[in-house]
């Protein structure tokens, strides 16, 4: 009843091209962003920031980047962890080797390094397609894992590739407490989400989607596959690289290559698929699902008062996690974003459906 767009007429092109054409959506999103920036810092406790909110924000950002490549351009990548690692170690090198490097600049330069490598590993996608490409991107993953372990220059000669950063600040404001970290990541996420949303509904986003739907047909109508695929790889690895930098710098503080292993790549791909391929909002839903699920599963036995030992608990977590993912894929193969869209359609007619 409240969610009706009757009487909302668009009288200019600007009004017609808004990201959220329905007034209620705009209000809801603005309220949500305001809540996240103004209210959450006072409501949540330290554990919640550290274990849930900050990982959720950073992984949403990474999922957003991956969604551009997989969901919008249709190129399956199993090497996301590698691009996160390149972002993190790239940012680390700029941060440590250049004195007085501002944090944000270091993170963005880390993203640029990920872009360069991403485009390099994107070149095979011009010839290799589908599942073959998916496995081929694992080459990026294992090569990166190896190089950060073995090539000492990348890690400033530290042993076993473990590095750490301290004394983070942005223009004099320290990034130390969980609340500051949260706000820092939230700002990044909002800016990138807005950029990504505008990219995918613009010219280049349509080229990506044409390539995804059928690349030969897209080439026939005059879309350059080389340009479209490589820009998708570039944009995606830039965002993923920045997310990797944030993960290392802000969330972990000190990290080693194992933080960006192949499991991380799978985890991100899960987020994108469960959240919804080709949907910006889906990346957030997916990240929330995958971040929260293990935490809930861990907390469940103690909350119900059933004492089980940790090894068994971790195995059970694996089992339930796997089973839920399969269950979810069967129930809604198009992800949570599709559920959300269906719900919205229902809401428009409620309480008087046809």
């Amino acid at each position, binding site marked *: 009843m409240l969610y009706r767009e009757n009487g909302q007429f668009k009288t200019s092109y600007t009004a017609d091209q808004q990201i959220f054409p329905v007034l209620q959506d705009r209000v809801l999103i603005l309220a949500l962003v305001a809540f996240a920036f103004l209210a959450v810092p006072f409501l949540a406790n330290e554990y919640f920031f550290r274990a849930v909110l900050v990982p959720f924000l950073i992984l949403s950002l990474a999922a957003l980047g991956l969604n551009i490549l997989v969901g919008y351009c249709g190129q399956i990548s199993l090497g996301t962890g590698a691009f996160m690692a390149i972002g993190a170690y790239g940012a680390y090198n700029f941060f440590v080797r250049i004195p007085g490097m501002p944090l944000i600049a270091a993170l963005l330069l880390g993203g640029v390094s990920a872009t360069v490598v991403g485009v390099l590993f994107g070149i095979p996608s011009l010839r290799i397609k589908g599942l073959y490409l998916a496995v081929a991107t*694992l*080459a990026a993953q294992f090569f990166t*894992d190896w190089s950060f372990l073995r090539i000492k220059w990348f890690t400033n000669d530290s042993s076993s590739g473990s590095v750490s950063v301290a004394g983070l600040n942005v223009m004099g404001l320290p990034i130390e407490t969980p609340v500051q970290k949260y706000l820092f990541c939230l700002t990044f996420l909002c800016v990138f989400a807005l950029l990504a949303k505008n990219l995918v509904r613009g010219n280049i986003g349509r080229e990506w989607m044409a390539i995804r739907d059928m690349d030969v047909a897209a080439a026939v109508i005059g879309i350059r596959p080389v340009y479209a695929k490589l820009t998708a790889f570039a944009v995606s690895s830039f965002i993923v690289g920045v997310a990797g930098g944030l993960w290392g710098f802000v969330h972990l503080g000190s990290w080693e290559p194992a933080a960006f292993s192949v499991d991380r790549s799978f985890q991100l791909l*899960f987020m994108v698929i469960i959240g919804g*391929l080709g949907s910006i909002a889906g990346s957030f839903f997916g990240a929330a699902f995958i971040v929260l699920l293990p935490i809930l599963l861990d907390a469940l036995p103690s909350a119900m008062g059933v004492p089980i030992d940790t090894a068994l608990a971790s195995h059970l977590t694996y*089992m339930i*996690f796997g089973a839920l993912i*399969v269950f979810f*894929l*069967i129930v809604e193969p198009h992800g949570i974003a599709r559920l959300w869209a269906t719900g919205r359609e229902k809401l428009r007619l409620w309480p008087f459906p046809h």
Partner: protein
Amino acid sequence: MGFFLETLFGGLMAGMLYSLIALGFVLIYKASGVFNFAQGAMVLFAALAMARFAEWFPKWFGFDNHWLAIALAFAGAMLVMIVVAYLIERLVLGKLVNQEGITLLMATLGISYFMDGFGQTLFGSDIYKIDIGMPKDPIFLFESLFQGGVLINKEDLYAALIAAALVVALSIFFQKTATGRALRAVADDHQAAQSIGIPLKHIWVVVWSVAGFAALVAGMIWGSKLGVQFSLSQVALKALPVVILGGLTSVPGAILGGLIIGVGEKLSEVYIGPMMGGGIEIWFAYVLALMVLLVRPQGLFGEKIIDRV
């Protein structure tokens, strides 16, 4: 020269085992279009089942014969894999018919998480041994040709022979039996196969069981070499480049790809590795596969990919 040949043989024998795992991938992909990431979890699950059954059966049934226990454990583990195949078809794949490849791939990843957890809950998570009586002593070949000859581990040789025998047996099964023919028909064209009365669901269970059998043999061999433990499920990651190198749809491709990757890995580790700081085995296989794919996008023996608008 002797050293080179030693490395070469070592690579060939390791490659035979990769082929075995790759074969599981290819069989399932051909028959149902599913890229089965759970193959590694199946190897671990089957090996765990066999190792534990070999311990438990003598206690349950009160006999004391090692070989009987091993044989029964093998049969028991095979039975378990058939049940797993049936359940996967019934509960997962049967409900995901006509979904996109990536959704199916993620579903098998979910299955592999489940099986890793379930296997270790059911059978325990320590390191177990499977003793199938593999001799550990090395033998020397070509002693008349080179000084010192070529040293070969008997265990590896037997493992390679078992793998080769299995590959031959599977080829005969596919070429000569009615079920095998039905499997090939399904692989060629689902609809045509169905229209002449081949039951798809039944075939999928058979294919997953055969893949389970390949997983069991692979798990048995790796398990007797390295012990049955969680890392066994990572073996699948080493077999992936084999699959794309040989071609997703080609059984001979899986075998030859396995040999190429096995040899390439060992030679690169020995001859290029020291220059780059070692440990290059894992990515070298992938980069090798990537190079081949750049020239032939469908793998060495895969069906040519034709794009039509």
